[in-house]
């Protein structure tokens, strides 16, 4: 696996578990470079100062915080490093919550990291992981990453643990201004039953391996075709529909209707299963033709 991007320790109570953090996800989106349309040379981004009308080297820049319009206070690297934070180089566990109850508040997630214990912390790491898993708990913790203190959730994940950074509550926008359905909207029982049936019929086990980024694949195939000097193949046209499909749909529909009748009739007439055509027909509604 790639290099760890952070090294520190999980801390709770008197326990310290040295760990490393690895990015759990990577972006697979296709990156483009900005070129000069004329010569196809790569554009360079220069840092420019409008006051001196000159390009500034990165080493001549400092961090400024705009505390009032056009007025800045400069923060040096030394001052940044000296910011008093208990959580520096530590994953400080604040509390444990039920994994299920916590889920609602932890929906605004940023980034997931895998944890790897240092050899000397392996036993405590495994102990924490097992207890979290058995008790169904999530640890809420704070960690400083990229100059920022982050709120995070720590969950057991397979044989490691997953640290998921969360947005702070004040970063989450309110949804109360949206135009949302109110309780006044009434739903007919039949509509609810239909929706429940539809959801039940589409309920299954989520298996992420079944899902792909189709846009990325399509874009990549266009790029590869251009690299190979070929014109991109236009997207496959939808296979024309066949009359046999309609007949198959009809057969499925009839089978469903028959099944619905069977299950409706079962509680009443379990014993009397009609075998012959006539017995079958006798149970059905009377002949009503020629009544128009």
């Amino acid at each position, binding site marked *: 696996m790639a290099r760890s991007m952070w090294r520190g320790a999980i801390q709770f109570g008197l326990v310290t578990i040295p760990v490393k953090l690895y990015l759990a996800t990577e972006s697979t989106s296709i990156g483009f470079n900005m070129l000069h349309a004329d010569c196809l040379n790569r554009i360079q981004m220069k840092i420019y100062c409008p006051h001196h009308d000159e390009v500034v080297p990165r080493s001549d820049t400092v961090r400024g915080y705009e505390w009032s319009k056009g007025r800045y206070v400069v923060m040096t690297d030394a001052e940044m490093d000296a910011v008093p934070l208990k959580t520096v180089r530590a994953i400080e566990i604040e509390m444990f919550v039920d994994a299920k109850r916590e889920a609602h508040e932890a929906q605004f997630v940023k980034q997931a990291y895998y944890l790897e214990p240092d050899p000397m912390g392996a036993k405590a790491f495994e102990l924490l992981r097992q207890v979290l898993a058995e008790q169904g708990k999530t640890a809420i913790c704070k960690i400083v990453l990229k100059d920022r203190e982050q709120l995070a959730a720590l969950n057991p994940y397979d044989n490691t643990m997953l640290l998921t950074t969360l947005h702070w509550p004040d970063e989450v926008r309110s949804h109360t201004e949206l135009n949302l359905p109110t309780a006044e909207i009434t739903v007919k029982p039949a509509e609810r039953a239909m929706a429940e049936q539809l959801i039940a*019929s589409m309920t299954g086990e989520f298996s992420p391996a079944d899902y792909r980024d189709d846009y990325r694949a399509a874009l990549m195939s266009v790029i590869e075709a251009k690299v190979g000097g070929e014109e991109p193949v236009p997207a496959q046209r939808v296979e024309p529909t066949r*009359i046999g499909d*309609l*007949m198959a749909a*009809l057969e499925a529909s009839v089978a469903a209707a028959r099944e619905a009748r069977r299950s409706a009739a079962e509680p009443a007439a379990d014993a009397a299963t009609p075998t012959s*055509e006539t017995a079958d027909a006798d149970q059905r509604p*009377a002949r*009503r033709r020629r009544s*128009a």
Partner: protein
Amino acid sequence: MATEQLPLPVAPRAPTGGAPARRLPERIFPMLPTEVASPFDDPDYLFEAWWPGARAIASCEGGVLRLQVAGLADAGAAFPELATLPAQLAEDGTMLDGTLLILDPDGRPDADLLRQRLAGAGRPGRPAYVASDLLWAGGQSVRLNAFRVRRAWLEAILEPGDRATVGRGYRGDGTLLAEALASMGVDGLSARHLGARYRSGPAGDAWLRAPIVPAEPRPRPTLALILRLPLGE
């Protein structure tokens, strides 16, 4: 069950062995269905979907298809995709009674697309032909045979293809088929008497059409939904 597909009463063979083939009539006066109030069950009837399409008599002679659609001088020109229909037939000199459909990209019959076709406004959608009855085969009229026999010959002669097929028929269980069709948004049921011969003009008891009231107003249910939704009792 009474709803099984109609079994073949005879071995598939040329229905008119020996007799000299005759030319098909240019146009015929087709059988006209009798309207009834509602779907019913009757083992003497074969029930089929009344698809939202156009009644069409398909004549295949010398490998060439001719379509007779009410109010249309040359229907074949509007449906060039169906020109391969004769290749699906085991017999030349054959005349079929059936329904012309236009399928939308989801495979559903679309009456609006059909109207556009018939009006000569382009060729949207994909045409299909669902055959229900056999009038002529091998250059001989079979209209005096019972529908039971004509239907069996039809199924023996017409090889199902992507564009043309014999419609699914269900014997006896009209109300069951009506329930299934209601869930698909089809509003009519066809019932042909198995013992009746083909009559030109009003059919009497030989061919009935029953309206199907949809269980709930669902403007255009998708096929996926149709396959999943429970059928209302």
